[in-house]
């Protein structure tokens, strides 16, 4: 450490405080003890700092500030509570009124398109990853079909050949626009965890979704980081979603 470095450190040194215990200050002070010029500079510096400190502490306090603080405490501790109650009541009334006015409008303008249906379903599983919430967890396809049939789902869904060979992991009934959607989950085998799911089949009555795909070849779309294939077979429309690409999806779709 040279003199200039010591000066830089000692610029903010306050004699008589805990500063002296700081290792940086201690080293700079040790140098000052050996260097008379630096020591003299430090003395002058300390006097300036003391004078400034004293001036800061002489900043005048407005008369009556203390009394003001003490008197306002009573007002402040009671008024905000009343204000909060009134505000809460007003806010609650406004929200209810707004909800009553706007919700019917929103309902009548809800997007009932197939694209919205597809997006909503995919988001549902995209949020939950490999372990989506299911109503029934089982590898038994018969149990899945039975459960869906008993809960207003689609127990008679028809799987493409490729998907029939894939292990089911469970199912759930999801609501969409007041209609039931059956979700059947599969494990493609890429994930070693037996209960992990990475293929998701959504089934809905074709008539329940305006502009749903017509019977024929499946169409592929990338939605929310998942690849989807959608098609209609019989009276049902199907969406199959997976984190993989289109090619990985195609192998499940051969009828």
């Amino acid at each position: 450490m040279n003199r200039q470095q010591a000066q830089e450190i000692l610029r903010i040194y306050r004699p008589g405080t805990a500063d002296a215990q700081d290792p940086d200050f201690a080293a700079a002070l040790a140098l000052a003890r050996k260097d008379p010029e630096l020591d003299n500079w430090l003395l002058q510096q300390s006097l300036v700092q003391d004078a400034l400190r004293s001036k800061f502490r002489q900043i005048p306090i407005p008369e009556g500030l203390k009394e003001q603080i003490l008197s306002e405490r009573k007002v402040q501790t009671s008024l905000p509570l009343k204000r909060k109650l009134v505000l809460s009541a007003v806010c609650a009334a406004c929200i209810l009124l707004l909800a009553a006015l706007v919700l019917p409008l929103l309902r009548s303008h809800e997007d009932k398109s197939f694209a919205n249906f597809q997006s909503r379903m995919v988001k549902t599983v995209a949020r939950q990853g490999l372990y989506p919430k299911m109503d029934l967890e089982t590898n038994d396809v018969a149990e899945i079909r039975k459960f869906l049939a008993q809960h207003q789902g689609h127990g008679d869904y028809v799987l493409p050949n490729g998907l029939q060979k894939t292990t089911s992991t469970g199912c759930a009934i999801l609501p969409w626009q007041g209609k039931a959607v059956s979700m059947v989950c599969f494990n493609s085998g890429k994930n070693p965890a037996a209960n992990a799911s990475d293929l998701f089949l959504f089934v809905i009555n074709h008539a329940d979704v305006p502009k749903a795909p017509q019977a024929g070849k499946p169409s592929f779309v990338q939605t929310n980081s998942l690849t989807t294939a959608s098609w209609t077979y019989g009276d049902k429309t199907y969406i199959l979603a997976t984190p993989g690409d289109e090619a990985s999806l195609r192998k499940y779709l051969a009828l």
Partner: protein
Amino acid sequence: MSHTDESAKRPNFEGLVEQYYRSLYQFAFSLAQSESEACDLTQQTFYIWATKGHQLRDVSKVKSWLFTTLHREFLESRRRQTRFPHYELSQVDEELPSISPARVNQLDSAQLLVALQQIDAVYHAPVALFYLEDYAYKEIAEILSIPMGTVKSRISRGIAQLQQALGGSPPAPAAKKESRE
């Protein structure tokens, strides 16, 4: 420790006001440089204590809590969105102007405040805490929520600007010629 024991140790409101309202006001004034705003900040700080002070578990930190709260309220009142740049002590290249103790002693508070208004706003809080309270740098860092190195550099720069504003002459050329090792 039982709840009763803790409550017994908790300082009462009037006692806290008596003990700290002066230094809090002076700190507020150093930040806001307006008497009315400093009064508001001081009152608001005690109001927050009255409503939320019970959440402070370590009653030995009441003083730091009050200064921290006042500083936050000040920042909130200014709605500062930009982060202050952080400078480490090694980056400080401003030389301390030469000012005599006698010159400082001749000043009155009004002159000091005029000088304080001339330094960059970012230095107000650390410089004020440096002079008003004998806080350790670590405590100042906690109050201002900035690293300790930044505290030191801001104090160093703030003092340099303050002394310049108080009429200090530029540093001696000899000091500038010295090379750093």
